[in-house]
């Protein structure tokens, strides 16, 4: 979405830049409720609302601003001439993005994904109206357990969250931590 907003001729790219910040500007509960009603109205079969995909979508949109603010400075540092040179060499817009701009911003993307993961892992608000018995969310479960004073389970979840974060950081470093020649 950042490359569409900043490196394309998309007519509404100016609005898109702002739209990526809106889900973060409103309280998480309101965001979750908006997704709940959107699923109810747009998906009468109710398959999306009750699924992990529906939850994932809500969390992704809610945290879009974090990803955007982590990724955009790196994208802005990559000169526009680099992808225009690809265009004049014969690459279409998407090909020039994939082979030049996004390729050069792999480290920033990795940072962005790790940040998003950590943020989503700890987030609970958007899930309040969307979780079912089959799709519990760790952050929300921890809140519910804390509210019933089940401290031991909350601590155990906290340790699991930490271990997951460390594992994701290690994987990110292993696969995406290469330095790009500059």
């Amino acid at each position, binding site marked *: 979405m950042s490359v569409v907003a900043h490196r394309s001729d998309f007519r509404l790219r100016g609005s898109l830049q702002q739209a990526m910040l809106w889900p973060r500007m409103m309280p998480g509960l309101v965001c979750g409720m908006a997704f709940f009603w959107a699923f109810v109205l747009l998906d009468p079969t109710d398959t999306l609302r009750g699924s992990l995909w529906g939850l994932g979508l809500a969390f992704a949109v809610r945290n879009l601003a974090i990803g955007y603010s982590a990724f955009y400075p790196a994208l802005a540092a990559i000169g526009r001439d680099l992808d225009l*040179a690809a265009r004049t*060499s014969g690459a279409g817009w998407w090909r020039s993005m994939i*082979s030049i701009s996004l390729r050069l911003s792999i480290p920033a993307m990795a940072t962005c994904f790790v940040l998003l993961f950590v943020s989503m892992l700890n987030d609970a608000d958007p899930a309040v109206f969307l979780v079912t018995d089959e799709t519990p969310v760790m952050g929300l479960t921890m809140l519910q357990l804390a509210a019933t004073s089940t401290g031991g389970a909350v601590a155990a979840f906290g340790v699991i969250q930490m271990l997951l974060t460390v594992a994701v950081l290690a994987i990110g470093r292993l696969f995406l931590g290469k330095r790009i020649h500059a």
Partner: protein
Amino acid sequence: MPDLTLTGLAKSFGANTVLHDLDLHVEDGELFTLLGPSGCGKSTTLWSIAGLHSPDSGRIAFGDRVVFDGARVDVPPEKRNCGVVFQSYAVWPHLTVLDNVAYPLKLRKVPRRDRARRVEEVLELVELGGLEDRYPHELSGGQQQRVALARALAHPPDLLLLDEPFSNLDAKLRERARDWLRILQQRIGVTTVFVTHDQDEALSMSDRIMVMDGGRVRQVGSPEEIYHEPADEFVADFIGTVNVLGAHVPAGADRSQVWVEGLGQPLAVSPAAPAEGDVRLAIRPERIVVHPSGAPAATPNAVTVKVRSQAFLGDHYRYVVALGDHELVVRTLSRIDHGTELTVELPPEAIRTYAAQA
């Protein structure tokens, strides 16, 4: 190689019009330079040719192939087959020299063996053979510029577009690079549009030059025409060093005689001034003849002046002398002391006259 024709090209950014109905024809194999100060519209013209800007109106054709025609045709940059060298070179930092140059060929699905042969060929052409495996950060500015040029020539292009390619090089390297590029362009015969604000580059490299100002064409001509017969005061002033003096042609008087403010005698001009009333005179310093010990009696436009300041510039001296109410820059090989009186001759055919702007 196709020629290039631009017809009625116009472009605005908001309320700012950067191109006003631009017409241009570049001959097959010609090196054509767009020259002008910053903001004159030369890069916008180049980017419009490359397809990186969409003009508001007009027509662009490469030979018989129309690549832009108002709202009807707008061929995207990847399908125009132009080779572009950007001011920043835009050499991709994550790819080796070989991969940079091979990129346009890969996109065109050129078989591996042919691709390797063509890459080797263009790298030899730009004298970068043996540096295939280097990354851009391991190259000098001049070498990066050559990689950008090799990449632009690899496919090979219908048109070569150069956007101030020498501006990041130091003075010595720039001089060498422009000689080298001119020879290369003549050897491969590709139709080339070159953008610069450097008059030396434009004069030394071009077959023809178009001088632009405020999105309008001021003059199109050979380097000699542009330098010796500038169409207006702007061109005269922008190209090289020129003395510009305010003058007057009395109503009903002979227009081949003009009166410079503060000078007690008229100056003969050839050709005659374009209008009566206020005019502007332009004369190049090197066209002014200095007679340190007085000019022969019949010399036209011989004026006695006093030296106000002097500067030694290695291969010549540069003097500022008083002529009427004006200062005149003259050049000579002789040393003349400050305050000395001397005679300068302003040959009538060396003086260009222009109507004064309102």
